[in-house]
C-alpha cells in the first residue's frame, strides 16, 4: 500500500487490515516514523513505547493470519498520560509523577488492549488535567498542528494534536470540564465525552471524581463510535460505573443512507449561547453547519437554559473542592516526588507539594481547600451543588422540546500561546459551552465545522441527553457524509 494509507481514518484502516492490504507492522512502523518527524514540532507525546508497539503489531498480524482478529486488532492508539498504563510512565503532566511507572492499567486501557489495539505511547496534557491550553504541562505546551504559535487546547491537548496531525488514528482523553471537546475543536478533530458512568474511571488519576469522564478522539464520528463501543462497559472497581447492557454506538451510523437521514430530528438552539463572547467566524461556521443539518432533514427549535451561565462558577467550586481532596494523596510518602530537604514531616508535605505541583494545580487546591474549610461549606460547595441541580433541570426541560443541542464548542478558535496563561479567569471562561455537560453528566461531542480567517479550526458541539451517544454520533456522521471539514489535514502534516 502507498504511504498515505496509514493516515486514513480508523474505520478505513480496519477494512484495509481485514482485506490484508496493510499489515499492522507496516502501519505501526509508518506511524512511529511520523511521530518521530512530527513530535519535535508538536510535543504531543511524552512517552513513545516503540518496542512494545512493534511486538503488539507482530502479534496482531499473527492473529490476523489465524483469523482471530477483531475490527480493532492491530490499530494504533495513544493514551492520555492521566490513564494508568502498566509498566509505562504515567506522569499526569506533572513534576509530581515525573518518574512514576504505573503498576496497573486503567479499565479503558485494558478494554482497548483486549480489543487488540496497539499502544503507541502517552500523550501530553495540562497537569492533572487542569487547564484549557496544555500550557500547564510540566513538560511544556503542545503546539497547535495548524499553527505553531497557537495552543492545541486542553487538557487533552497531546491526544487532540496527535490525531489532528495524523500521528495516530485514535487517542483517549478525559473530560472534566471540556478537556476532550475543547482541544478537539481547537485542533480540528472529533472528540466525544460519553455519559458519566459509561466508561469506568478505574485507573484514571482522579481530578474531580463526580465530573471526570474518559472518552476518545478520532478523525470521524464513525471512528469515535467504534472506539467508544470497545471502551465502554461495567467495571465493579469503579462504584459509579453503570451496570447496563452493552451498546453498539455505531448502530445508527451503519443504517442505510437516505436523502434526509436526519428527518424528524429536533435540534435545540439555546438562546443563551447566542452572542456573548462568541467570535464572528465561529458564529458563521455554526450557522452554516446548522443549514446543513436542516438540509439533512433536521428541524431547529429555540430553547432556553436560564441557569447555564452559572456553569463556570459552579464548576470552579465543585471541581476545585474535589481536586483538593483527591490530590491530597500526593504527599511525598507513597509515590512520586519528595522534596530533597525539609525540617520535619509537616515541612516535608509542604515542600514536596510546593515543588511537585505547578501554579494552576496549586491554585485549584487552594480554592478547593477554602470552599471546604470550616464555616464555608454551605456557602460554596453545598450552594454549588444546588445550582448544579438547577442547571441539570434546565437541560431536562429542554429535552422535552428537542433531541440534541447544537452550538459552538468554544467561543473562539485557538488562541496564542501565552495569551491567557497569566489570567486564570479568562482561561476558565473558555470552557463556557462545555462545562454544563460535565455538571449534568450527559454526553457531548465536538466535530470540525470550519476555519477562522487565520486558518484555525472551529468546533461544533453536539450535546444530547443521558445515553444519547448513538444519536449524537449519527448526527455527526450524517454531517460528515456531506461535508469534508474532518478530512482536512494541517498542511505541515499532509505529506
Amino acid at each position, binding site marked *: 500500500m502507498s504511504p498515505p494509507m496509514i493516515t486514513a481514518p480508523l474505520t478505513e484502516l480496519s477494512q484495509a487490515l481485514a482485506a490484508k492490504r496493510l499489515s499492522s507492522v507496516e502501519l505501526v512502523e509508518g506511524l512511529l516514523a511520523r511521530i518521530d518527524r512530527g513530535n519535535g514540532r508538536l510535543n504531543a507525546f511524552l512517552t513513545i513505547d516503540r518496542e512494545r508497539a512493534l511486538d503488539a503489531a507482530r502479534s496482531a498480524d499473527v492473529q490476523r493470519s489465524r483469523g482471530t482478529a477483531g475490527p480493532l486488532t492491530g490499530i494504533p492508539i495513544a493514551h492520555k498520560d492521566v490513564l494508568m498504563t502498566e509498566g509505562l510512565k504515567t506522569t499526569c503532566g506533572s513534576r509530581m509523577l515525573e518518574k512514576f*511507572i504505573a*503498576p*496497573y492499567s486503567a479499565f479503558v486501557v485494558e478494554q482497548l488492549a483486549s480489543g487488540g489495539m496497539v499502544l503507541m505511547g502517552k500523550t501530553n496534557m495540562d497537569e492533572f488535567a487542569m487547564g484549557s491550553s496544555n500550557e500547564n504541562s510540566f513538560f511544556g505546551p503542545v503546539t497547535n498542528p495548524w499553527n505553531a504559535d497557537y495552543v492545541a487546547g486542553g487538557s487533552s491537548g497531546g491526544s487532540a494534536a496527535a490525531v489532528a496531525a495524523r500521528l495516530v488514528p485514535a487517542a483517549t482523553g478525559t473530560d472534566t470540564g471540556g478537556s476532550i471537546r475543547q482541544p478537539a475543536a481547537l485542533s480540528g478533530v472529533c472528540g466525544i465525552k460519553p455519559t*458519566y*458512568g459509561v466508561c469506568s474511571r478505574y485507573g484514571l488519576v482522579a481530578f474531580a471524581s*463526580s*465530573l471526570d469522564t474518559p472518552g476518545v478522539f478520532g478523525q470521524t464520528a464513525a471512528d469515535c463510535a467504534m472506539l467508544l463501543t470497545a471502551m465502554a462497559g461495567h467495571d*465493579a472497581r469503579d*462504584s*459509579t460505573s453503570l451496570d447496563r447492557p452493552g451498546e453498539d454506538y455505531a448502530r445508527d451510523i451503519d443504517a442505510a443512507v437516505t436523502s434526509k437521514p436526519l428527518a424528524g430530528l429536533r435540534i435545540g438552539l439555546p438562546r443563551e449561547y447566542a452572542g456573548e463572547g462568541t467570535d464572528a467566524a465561529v458564529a458563521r461556521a455554526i450557522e452554516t453547519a446548522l443549514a446543513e443539518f436542516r438540509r439533512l432533514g433536521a428541524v431547529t427549535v429555540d430553547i432556553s437554559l436560564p*441557569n447555564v451561565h*452559572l456553569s*463556570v*462558577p*459552579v464548576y*470552579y*467550586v465543585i471541581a476545585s473542592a474535589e481536586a*483538593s481532596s483527591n490530590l491530597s494523596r500526593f*504527599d*511525598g*510518602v*507513597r*509515590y*512520586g*516526588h*519528595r522534596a530533597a530537604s*525539609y525540617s*520535619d*514531616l*509537616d515541612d*516535608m*508535605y*509542604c*515542600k514536596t*507539594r*510546593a515543588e511537585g505541583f505547578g501554579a494552576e494545580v*496549586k*491554585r485549584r*487546591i*487552594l*480554592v478547593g481547600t*477554602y470552599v471546604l*474549610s470550616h464555616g464555608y461549606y454551605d*456557602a460554596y460547595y*453545598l*450552594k*454549588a*451543588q*444546588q*445550582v*448544579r*441541580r*438547577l442547571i*441539570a433541570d434546565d437541560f431536562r426541560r429542554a429535552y422535552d422540546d428537542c433531541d440534541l443541542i447544537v452550538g459552538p464548542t468554544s467561543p473562539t478558535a485557538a488562541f496564542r500561546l501565552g495569551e491567557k496563561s497569566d*489570567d*486564570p*479567569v479568562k482561561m476558565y471562561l473558555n470552557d463556557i459551552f462545555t462545562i454544563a455537560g*460535565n*455538571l449534568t*453528566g450527559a454526553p457531548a461531542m465536538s466535530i470540525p465545522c470550519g476555519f477562522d480567517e487565520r486558518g484555525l479550526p472551529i468546533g461544533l458541539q453536539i450535546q444530547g441527553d443521558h445515553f444519547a451517544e448513538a444519536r449524537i454520533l449519527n448526527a455527526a456522521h450524517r454531517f460528515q457524509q456531506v461535508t469534508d471539514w474532518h478530512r482536512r489535514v494541517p498542511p505541515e502534516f499532509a505529506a
Partner: protein
Amino acid sequence: MALSLDEVRRIAHLARIEITPAEAADVRAKLESIFELVGRMRAVDTTGIVPMSHAQDLVLPLREDRVAETDRHARYQQGAPAVEDGLYLVPKVIE
C-alpha cells in the same frame, strides 16, 4: 472578594503547600479573581433545592464479601520515595 495575606497563608497551610513570601501577593490576587467569578452563583435563590452531588442518581452497589485483591504490595512500593522492610519511611514524628 477580598482575601488577606494571612488567610492565603492559612489556606496554604491547610492544603500543605508552602507559599513563599514572594509568591503570596500574586497567589492572593489570582485567588481573589477566581472568587469573584465563583461569587456569581452565590446570589441565586436555592431555597429547597436538593443538592446534586453526582451526575447519576446512583445507589452505591454492594459487592459480595470475598477476597478480590491480590497482594501487590511490593509492586506498589516500587514508586515510593523511601521504603524499608515493606514500610514507607517518613521523618520522625515522635521523639
